[in-house]
C-alpha cells in the first residue's frame, strides 16, 4: 500500500467508514463494553435485581466470595468441568484425527457424524442426555447393568452428576477439536513423514518428534478456544441439573452468576462473581497467548 494512496483515500473515506462502522460500534459499546464496566461497578454494591435502590459495600462481596465454602465447591466444580472438558475433548479429538488421517472408506461419513453434535442446541443435548442417564430405565444405566455393573444414581450423587454433565459436554464438543486437528494433520508437511518412515522410526517416535511439533499452532488455538467455551457452559448444566443436586453439586462459576442474579436476585453479588470470572479468564488467555508467541519465536 503506497503512501500516496493513504493521502488520497483518507479524506474521501472518513465519512463512509464512519457510516459503515457506526452501527456495529454502537451495538458493541452499548451491549458489550458498557455492561462490562457496569458489572465491575455493580460488584461493589449490594443490589437486588429490579430494586430502585442499591448500597455501596466496598469489597464486601469479594470477601464473601473468597471466604464462603459454597464458592470453594463452585470453584472445584469449575476446574474439574473445564479441565476434563479441555483435556478430554482435545485428547480424544487428536486420537480420532490421527486414526482417521489415512485413506479409509467411509471417513467422510464418520467426520460428519463426529462433528454433528457440535452444531446441536446445547439445551436440547442437555435434555436428551438427562433422559439417557435417567436412573432405572435410562440407556446408560441399562448398558452398565448389561456389563454386570451396578449403575450409580447420576441424578442424586454430586460427583456422578458432575461426571454426567462433563461427559455430555465432551460428547457435544468432541467434533470441534477433531475437525481442527484433522485439518492441521492434513496441512502438515508429509515429506517429513516419509523421511521418518525411511529412518524406520517407531510410530510413537514419529508422532512425538515429527507430527506433534507441527500440530503446535492447532493445539494452542484449541487450548484457548475450548477453555473459553467450556468455562462458559450454561445450557447443558441448566437443562440437566439446574446446578444441583444438593444446591450446588454441578454449579460452576457461570451457573453461580445466573443463580445469584436471576434466582436469588442478588445482582450485586452476581456481578462480583462475573467480574472475578472475567479477570480470571483474561489472565489465563493472556498467559496462553504469551506462551504461544514465545513458542512461535523459538
Amino acid at each position, binding site marked *: 500500500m503506497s503512501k500516496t494512496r493513504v493521502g488520497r483515500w483518507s479524506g474521501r473515506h472518513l465519512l463512509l467508514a464512519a457510516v459503515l462502522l457506526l452501527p456495529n460500534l454502537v451495538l458493541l459499546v452499548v451491549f458489550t463494553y458498557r455492561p462490562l464496566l457496569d458489572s465491575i461497578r455493580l460488584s461493589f454494591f449490594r443490589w437486588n435485581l429490579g430494586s430502585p435502590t442499591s448500597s455501596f459495600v466496598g469489597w464486601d462481596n469479594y470477601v464473601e466470595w473468597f471466604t464462603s465454602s459454597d464458592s470453594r465447591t463452585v470453584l472445584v466444580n469449575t476446574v474439574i468441568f473445564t479441565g476434563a472438558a479441555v483435556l478430554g475433548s482435545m485428547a480424544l479429538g487428536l486420537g480420532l484425527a490421527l486414526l*482417521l488421517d489415512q485413506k479409509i472408506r467411509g471417513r467422510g461419513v464418520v467426520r460428519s457424524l463426529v462433528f454433528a*453434535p457440535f452444531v446441536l442446541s446445547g439445551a436440547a443435548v442437555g435434555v436428551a442426555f438427562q433422559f439417557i442417564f435417567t436412573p432405572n430405565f435410562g440407556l446408560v444405566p441399562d448398558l452398565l447393568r448389561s456389563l454386570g455393573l451396578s449403575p450409580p444414581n447420576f441424578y442424586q450423587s454430586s460427583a456422578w452428576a458432575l461426571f454426567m454433565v462433563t461427559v455430555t459436554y465432551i460428547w457435544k464438543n468432541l467434533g470441534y477439536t477433531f475437525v481442527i486437528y484433522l485439518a492441521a494433520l492434513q496441512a502438515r508437511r508429509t515429506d517429513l513423514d516419509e523421511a521418518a518412515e525411511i529412518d524406520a522410526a517407531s510410530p510413537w517416535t514419529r508422532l512425538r518428534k515429527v507430527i506433534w511439533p507441527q500440530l503446535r499452532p492447532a493445539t494452542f*488455538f484449541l487450548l484457548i478456544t475450548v477453555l473459553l467455551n467450556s468455562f462458559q457452559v450454561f445450557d447443558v448444566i441448566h437443562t440437566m441439573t439446574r446446578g444441583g443436586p444438593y444446591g450446588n453439586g454441578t454449579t460452576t462459576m457461570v451457573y453461580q452468576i445466573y443463580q445469584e*442474579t436471576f434466582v436469588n436476585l442478588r445482582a450485586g453479588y452476581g456481578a462480583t462473581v462475573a467480574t472475578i470470572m472475567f479477570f480470571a479468564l483474561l489472565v489465563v488467555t493472556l498467559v496462553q497467548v504469551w506462551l504461544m508467541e514465545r513458542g512461535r519465536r523459538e
Partner: protein
Amino acid sequence: MSATTAPHEHRGVLSQVSGYLAMLVVVLVIALPLYWIVAASLKERPDIYTVPVTWFPDPVTLENYDGVRHGVPFLDFLRNSVLITTVLTVVQVVLGVLSAFALSFLRFPGRTVVLLFIIAALMVPSQITWISNYALVAQLGWRNTFAGIIIPLAGVAFGTFLLRNHFVSLPTEIIEAAEMDHAGALTLLWRVVLPMSWPTVIAFTLITIVNEWNQYLWPLLMADDSSTAPLPVGLTQLQDAEGFTNWGPVMAGTVLTMLPVLVVFLVLQRHMIKGLTAGAVKG
C-alpha cells in the same frame, strides 16, 4: 484433502484395521444417543419405561409428536426461532461485511484502534454482560419483545475479525485496478470484493445460523412465554411441564429442536468447517 493423504496409502494393514475399529467405536458412541432419542420419540408411552430397555419402537407411533403441541405451543416457539435466527443472521452478516470492508479497504485516522476495539470485544464473556443488559432492557420495557432478544445480540466481533482476515488476503492488484477505474468504494465491495469472498461469507453465515438457533440463556432471561421464546427455551418449558413422567413428547420436542440445524449442517457442512478451521491450522 485427498491429495495430501497419498503418502499414507501404503501404510500397514495394522493401521488400517485400527482405523476401522476406531470408526466403529466412534459411530457407536456418537450415533447411539442420537438413535436413542429418536427411538424414544417414536415409542408408545409404556415402552419408554421398561427395564431392561426396549431397543426398537414397536409399534412405531407419532403420538408423541402430536403430544408436543398439547404440552406447550410448540409451533409458536418454532416461528420465534425462525424469526430470531433470520433477523440476527442477516444483521450480523451485513454488519460484519461492512465493518470488515471499512477496516480493510478504507483509509481513515484511527483505523487500527477501531480494529483492536472490535477484536477486544471477543475477550468479554457474555456472562458479565447479562446483569447490566437485563436491567437496561427491562428498563426500556423490552422484555418479551423480539427487539429485547435480538438487539443486544446483534453486535459483530468474531465475524468482523474473520472477514477482515480474508479481505486483507485478497490480491491487491485487482483492488488497485478497480480503484484505477474510479469505481466507488461500495461498487468495489459489491463487484470485486464480495465475488471473491463468498466462501468466507457463507462460512460465517452458517456459523451465525447455528449459534443464533442454539442461543439459550439470553432468550431464557428475556422471554417468559411463547409470544417471543425460541425453541430451546420452549423445550425447557416442555421439560418442566411433562418432566420425568412423560418423556415421549419431551424427546419428540428435542428431536424437533435439533433437526433444522442438523439438516442445514449436513447439506452445507463443508463450508462451515472451512470457516471454523480458518486461522487454526497455520496459527
